[in-house]
């Protein structure tokens, strides 16, 4: 009886190990499939034309996504102008200044904002910027992406700054260094790697955002020349092509997806690799 019971327990133990292993594999499978298909369907269309040409008129084959790629970078630049300074400085406030109550409130607010679906952000900036100006614009697109970045960067900056041991702050202050200098040139400097990581990850995240751009940047089949004009963006282009009825556009959508996916993946992987030595996980 004892032996049977023990055997049964051993079997269940083994079974559960197998099951959890299988589940983990199932989590990995979609990613592998996505990567595989994007690579397979997209690689053929990656050529010089893709990177340098504008989209061709409806129905014609060929052309490229040059304006979308440039547009994405432009939007990221605009977004950074808003998101990075406000986010980092806000994160500094949360970590170095403030009161318990106030900081809890700000933190909670930032977490709430981080949970707001990105399409809602799009609606907000539509009402805020697009409607009054009566136009879709790159500016609106940059603003919405920047707003998404603010709470993201604020929280990651705060987390990283809190990890800086207090001893460094004390040592600097004991030398008679002014507090603001201590924060900027000692504390932030020590945590710089982590802060940059947070910024890069936030950039990679908003680079892939489509929903908020649907009614702010709108998209553009040509080059954007003014901040107040609509602008193309890679994820927007991918979406529009994907839901279109044209084969050629589908093909280009895959190519665009490949470019976007590679960009996002490279940023994420390199950032994690660069910080891995700091945060060795034991389980």
């Amino acid at each position: 009886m004892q032996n049977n019971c023990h055997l049964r327990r051993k079997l269940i133990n083994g079974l559960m190990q197998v099951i959890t292993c299988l589940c983990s594999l199932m989590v990995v499978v979609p990613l592998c499939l996505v990567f595989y298909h994007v690579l397979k369907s997209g690689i053929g269309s990656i050529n010089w034309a893709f990177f340098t040409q504008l989209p061709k008129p409806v129905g014609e084959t060929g052309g490229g996504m040059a304006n979308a790629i440039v547009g994405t970078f432009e939007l990221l630049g605009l977004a950074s102008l808003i998101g990075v300074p406000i986010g980092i400085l806000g994160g500094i406030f949360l970590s170095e200044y403030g009161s318990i109550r106030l900081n809890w409130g700000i933190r909670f607010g930032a977490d709430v904002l981080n949970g707001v679906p990105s399409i809602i952000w799009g609606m907000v900036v539509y009402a805020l910027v697009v409607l009054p100006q009566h136009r879709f614009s790159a500016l609106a697109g940059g603003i919405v992406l920047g707003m998404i970045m603010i709470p993201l960067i604020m929280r990651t900056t705060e987390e990283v700054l809190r990890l800086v041991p207090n001893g460094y702050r004390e040592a600097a202050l004991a030398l008679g260094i002014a507090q603001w200098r201590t924060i900027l040139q000692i504390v932030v400097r020590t945590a710089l790697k982590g802060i940059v990581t947070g910024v890069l990850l936030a950039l990679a995240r908003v680079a892939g955002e489509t929903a908020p751009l649907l009614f702010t940047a709108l998209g553009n089949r040509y080059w954007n020349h003014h901040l107040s004009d609509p602008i193309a963006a890679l994820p927007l282009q991918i979406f529009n092509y994907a839901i279109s009825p044209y084969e050629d556009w589908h093909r280009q959508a895959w190519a665009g997806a490949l470019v976007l996916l590679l960009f996002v993946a490279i940023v994420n992987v390199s950032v994690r690799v660069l910080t891995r030595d700091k945060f060795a996980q034991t389980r």
Partner: protein
Amino acid sequence: MLMTEDQQKVRPPTPVVIPRTEVPQKKVSGPPGSSTPAISVRDLSVYFGANQVLKRVNLDVPAQAVTAIIGPSGCGKSTFLRAINRMHDLVPSARIEGRIQLFGEDIHGDHLEPVQVRRRVGMVFQKSNPFPTMSIADNVTVGLRLNGLRKNSVLAERMEQALVMAALWDEVKDRLSSPAVSLSGGQQQRLCIARALAVQPEVLLMDEPASALDPLATARIEDLILELKRDYTIIIVTHNMQQAARISDDTAFFYLGELIEFGTTSKLFTSPSKKQTEDYVTGRFG
């Protein structure tokens, strides 16, 4: 996240004071004991919230000597030390009563900003904390650079001076640009001492500077302290009575937030006047 407390009115921005380049020469005129004490404490009480940690401490710390602060855990030694360079300003719940004078000047007075006090009163901490993103050279000069001193020649000179005084120069002179964290524990602590000395303070506060070090490194720090006292006033908190006996000229014994006894080290350890002191130094408690 350490804050500065607003207890004074707004005053116009004070110009950055670059400390003088020569080592200060303190004139000791008249018989010993009649010169201005380096630190003069009157009725000092420190509260954290409702908790009173120091109770009406009265003490005169003589200049250019080593004064040791001893006492069991929780007796307020570190609190006392940190009051002298106004580190409690950075703690929101801290409240200070009484008066502390630095060579006759009230450190809480209108003339002195906390930042200025801290440039004149240096501190070395229990756990060595050289700034990890900086080289050895940068660590030593950081106090000068971040207070506005830019001339490389002066910085180099002061850096060498400080490292020599901290008995670290020979060991690091060939690798001044290597990261500070590449040094051993004892070397890092001496680096922190050099960093504090570079700013040329008048008084040096040391909070158990050798407690995290092995006996060899400890011995070197102690030798260093004996050298430094020629030019600096040193106050050292230590839980190691033998260390206090070895290196200090005067010793103050604290217990439960009160200064129980203060006198020459030899007298305090061999024939203390208070029973509590005697109990502590003979090891009956603590």
